[in-house]
């Protein structure tokens, strides 16, 4: 069975390091990107099944990644937004942009491998 591909779009190398270890050990193939440009390139190159998208990337908006990929019909099957702002307006904006779900930071990383499997097994994906 081909391993599901996860793209981590996150500008903290520390967080990427921890999540990569966890997801790889859980059987996923993981790539990461720290900027909007890197994320678009990685998504076009690797065609990830799942993109975990931090909304705040230094001075850029993570949603720009999704908008650009969606315009080129290259959006991953599932995109999950990660944000520190638990606000309905942010959530709505993410869902409108095509995110499947929004996780509020600090997230519960140990639940991620199972959550990803659930998102991927959802027929709506």
């Amino acid at each position, binding site marked *: 069975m081909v391993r599901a591909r996860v793209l981590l779009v996150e500008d903290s190398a520390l967080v990427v*390091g921890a999540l990569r270890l966890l997801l790889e050990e859980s059987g996923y193939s993981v790539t990461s990107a720290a900027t909007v440009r890197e994320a678009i390139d990685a998504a076009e190159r690797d065609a990830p099944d799942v993109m975990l998208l931090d909304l705040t990337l230094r001075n850029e908006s993570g949603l720009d990644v999704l908008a650009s990929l969606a315009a080129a019909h290259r959006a991953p099957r599932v995109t999950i937004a990660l944000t520190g702002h638990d606000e309905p307006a942010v959530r709505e904006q993410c869902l409108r942009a095509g995110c499947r779900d929004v996780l509020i930071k600090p997230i519960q990383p*140990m639940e991620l491998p199972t959550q990803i499997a659930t998102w991927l097994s959802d027929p709506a994906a």
Partner: protein
Amino acid sequence: MAHPYAHKLPLEERLAALQEQNLQLARELSELRNQEALKTQFLSNISHDLRTPLTAVITHAEILRDGILGTVNERQRDSLSGIISGSRQLLNMVGEILTYARGAANQLTLTCSTFTIDALIEQVCAVNEPLIAKKGQTLAVDIEPGLPPLSADREQIAHVLANLLSNAIEFTPPGGRVWINASTGPLTERGSTILVEVGDTGIGIAVEHHELIFREFAQVDASASRSHHGTGLGLAIARKFVELHGGRIWVESTLGQGSRFYFTLPAGTPT
């Protein structure tokens, strides 16, 4: 003979001096306000930035503890659990500072949903049950049947309840009693309310400290050798959250005879 207007000169001079002083004070006030805003912004940024590496520390420790990278023995697991609980405590404190900074900058908003107080009490009790059992305390819950649902920010009210319950557990000796009651509150001009009580048979709070404990950064024992640690923000944040909903929070307690914390929330949709 003195000049007829001589007495006016000092008066005009004094007026001018006062005006100059007023300007100076206004400048200083504005400068202090700017510094206060900068400090709040700094607190907000630093606490936000502290959370990121802390989250990474916790994740790495959890990966090891759960045996994802290979089997760990019991003593190794205990040690890792120590890292995780210490880091979680730190993460909670950082979270409190962030909430405080957002509150000080008037950046706190309500995200309301409809829920019953029963469900929320059950959720908060479930999280604290292991700690209650560890301290050999008993926890009793009494909810008046038929209370109307709340339309409130569930996360904020859960935070208030969790804070009061964890204080009750912390400041009550082993074997003591802790309870949560919910009932119909007093009728206010804005309508009916729900009254929640979190009580304990613990060390209690002296009357002169009943207001102090709700102030930011205040702790009854602020000395370096104090036995209870924390940011001193928990109750200040609880008060902020309750007041954002249009409710009230207060304490009734006598030193050595336990404490009863109360808060009210408007039933139904906040206006």
